[in-house]
């Protein structure tokens, strides 16, 4: 039973990386590079870093834009946000908003 649950959960997670999504300008693949801090699929339990899973698109886009412009202070997100175009950010926003 437990195994069944685990494997169906795995299948569910895996669909997030299926090509239909990945081809949306790489949102899923790009978002995966954030996981070293924000957790696999943007999911974290109890950590200093914040989870991104389920974040509404507008909230995510505003955060990235304000980091990039320097309007919002940060330790390092300001540096990282420089590396992503508006299109990149939108693709990641769509991806993270969809993770439940």
């Amino acid at each position, binding site marked *: 039973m*437990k*195994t069944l649950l*685990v*494997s169906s959960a*795995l*299948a569910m*997670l*895996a669909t*997030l*990386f*299926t*090509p239909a999504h*990945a*081809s949306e300008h*790489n949102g899923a*693949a*790009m978002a*995966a*590079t*954030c*996981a*070293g*801090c*924000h*957790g*696999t699929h943007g999911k*974290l339990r109890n*950590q*200093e*870093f914040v989870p991104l899973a389920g974040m509404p698109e507008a909230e995510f886009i505003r955060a990235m834009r304000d980091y990039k412009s320097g309007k919002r*202070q940060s*330790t*390092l997100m*300001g*540096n*990282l946000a*420089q*590396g*992503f175009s508006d299109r*990149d950010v939108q693709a990641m926003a769509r991806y993270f908003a969809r993770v439940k």
Partner: protein
Amino acid sequence: MLNRRDFIKAGAALACAAALPARAADTAAHVVIIGGGVGGATAAKYLKLANPKLRVTVIEANRVYVRGYGSSEVVTGHATMADLNVSYDALHQRYGIHFIFDTVVGFDPDKRQVRTAGRQTIAYDKLIVSPGISLQYSAIPGYSAALAETRAPSGWIPGTQTALLAQQLKAMRQGGTFVLIAPPKPYRCPPGPYERAALVTEWMRKHNPTGKLVILDPKDDFVTDASMQLGWHRLYGYNIPADFMKGMPADVKNSGKPAPIEWVRARDGGTVSKIDPKSLTVTFAGGSIKADVLNVIPPMKAGKLAFDMGLVDASGWCPIERRTFASSLHPDVFVIGDASIADVMPKSGYSANNQAKITAFAVANLLAGRAPDEPKWKNVCYALAGSDYGLFVADVFRLKDNKIVQISGHRYMSLDATPTQIRLGAAYQQAWLKTFTEDCFA
């Protein structure tokens, strides 16, 4: 759930099954990964996330992974050797990844088979290799693997040498000299030697206040250099060289007094020519010095396995096609992590983790007959100038003319970072050790 014994049995059963031709009519493709370090473990997990139907087997020499990142904290007693151990159980149980604990000794690229020391033959459709580094102990006259295990540890592949270095630091005489020999480029973990120097200096301020640390370096710069030196200056009274003063905050004034940490660069004669194994006297271009504790981080090349498999070029590293990290030398083989030639992308855990993901997606796509995506990679290395003093290098990379290039932007913690940013950086560094390990291994 499988218990540990089942796990081992399952691995053995799979090893037999795997010796059969790799792809019968409608079985899923078999991806074999050699090396269950940061690169290999992450690749295995993300292959399963990309396509749970793939059969994924990791061949790894050791049952427990000893992580290198964060291992300098063992030297100063902030962490124990046991803290460095990472289990493979989660990868096996959660994702159904198979593990074979054995050492790969060779492969047959035509038959697409891998051979192990335990005389197993494992067939693959695609092979991902993440063998890490080998240390060129004998590149420095007088230094050797034997000396590294007994008197002058390196501790750059974590293990017994890391523990030995910790003991030696504790036992060092009051007022003694800790000499750290930094490696030439390219090497694993660019800010690592300098972070270790900082943590040792911090430790000595508390436990050996008249002790002193000297870095002998064959380079004139290093990753995070300005921000790291600012940290040394603030915490240990380090004197910042004139050519690094540009952009420093206005209150930074060298005292000119001898500081407990000193960086002797190539241009100041820092290049080492030999070590006397008896007296631990180090001869370098600018003079000689007798070490009480000697930590040598020797030049590096790709892991031995990469040589055995014929995956390296004349540089001693593995040439790859950048988009997918496919080996330029053998078909159906991908080389990721420290061993690969990834241009400006540093040899770090974060890089290995990111390369693993992009390569896992590419392999899943290729097996499904799709073209790989346009890649973007990232690297962030956190580093400490002291326990509460965090800094970092952060980069985003993309492909340009089959080379990996940086997307411009600030790379380091800014020199006018506030005390809050600096302390938060240190808190996040500690958090990263956990979240990163989870992303790779759980």
